[in-house]
């Protein structure tokens, strides 16, 4: 990139910083697209806005290979178990972005069918308002998430740490999703 000659031969850093730096620039995404916000996601991912510039390049269509779950569009109660199962299939460390007002709060679908914000089902790291949001907003959210990833303790998502934190917070692990009728 033409930067090599400007860098010193040796760089010292902390391990936590290095891990955060690597994580924030290699976000593999899982787009969970259910509605019209998907068009804005595609616009953001495509050449004009190009989130590949920020390391979020390849959409992975298996949650097992993804770090970042984009919930793009309205999620209704019929779909909720599948969204949570997809979240649980992702390997740690993992982050979630609620894309658009429907995923964030339910939006104007204040009715019997729609989940009033996906944070009722899965934890969310960044919310993007807008109906649909412009690509600039999406990129802003991605940069804010990168800042957070950089600054987080690097073992925050380690299994032991997570379980310890859950015990402190008094959060009981969710029951199994699909209980077959007898």
């Amino acid at each position, binding site marked *: 990139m033409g930067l090599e000659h400007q860098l010193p031969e040796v760089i010292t*850093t902390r391990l936590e*910083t290095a891990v*955060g*730096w690597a994580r*924030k620039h290699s976000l593999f995404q899982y787009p969970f697209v259910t509605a019209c916000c998907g068009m804005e996601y595609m616009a953001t991912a495509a050449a004009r806005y190009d989130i590949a510039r920020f390391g979020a390049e390849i959409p992975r269509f298996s949650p097992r290979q993804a770090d970042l779950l984009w919930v793009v569009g309205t999620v209704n*109660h*019929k779909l*909720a*178990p599948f969204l*949570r199962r997809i979240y649980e299939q992702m390997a740690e460390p993992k982050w979630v972005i609620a894309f658009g007002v429907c995923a964030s709060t339910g939006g104007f679908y*204040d*009715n*019997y*069918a*729609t*989940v*009033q914000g996906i*944070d*009722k*089902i*899965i*934890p*969310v*790291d*960044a*919310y993007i308002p807008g109906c649909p949001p412009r690509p600039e907003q999406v990129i802003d959210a991605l*940069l*804010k998430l*990168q*800042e*957070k990833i*950089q*600054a*987080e303790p690097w073992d925050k998502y380690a299994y032991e740490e997570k379980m310890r934190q859950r015990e402190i917070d008094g*959060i009981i692990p*969710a*029951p199994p*999703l699909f209980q077959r009728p007898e």
Partner: protein
Amino acid sequence: MAKKLIDFVQKKFASEVLHTHSRLGNDTVTVKRDKLVEIVRELRDDPSTQMDYLRTITAVDYLPRQPRFELVYVLYSMKHKHMLILRVMLEDSDAVAPSLHTLYGTAGWQEREVWDMYGIRFSGHPDLRRVLLYEEFEGHPLRKDYLKQASQPRVELLARERDSVEEFNIYVNDRPSSGSRDQ
């Protein structure tokens, strides 16, 4: 074309017709429930009508009124390009209508949707299950007495597990020395 279809139904099934109108170009006939299948079959098969396409089946809930429900069948002819709306009134206590699945292949699906949303049963339907909502849903949401915000979650809804703004402030804003532009 106006009134032609209404006259057709009125001539052949005079005792079945309760009410007709053709406001705004919508020829509408309200008929009794019992001979609905015969009326629709006649409309489909007669060469002068040939209503070969069932556009939609839907329903209306006029809650305080009795009879409470009205089923709406929109029939169309691909050949003659004319449309007729059939309406059938149903009492709340006896919300059952004959199924049209033997006449139109699409009727089975649309009757399932009407059952799902309004709770109107169709006698003779081979597989009357919910089509849009999930099996464990109780009640019929487009009925006027269903509370429109009464959701029925399939998974246990959690309290919000993370406050992302607070977390962002803890990790980024309150620790300026370890922001994204790390030294």
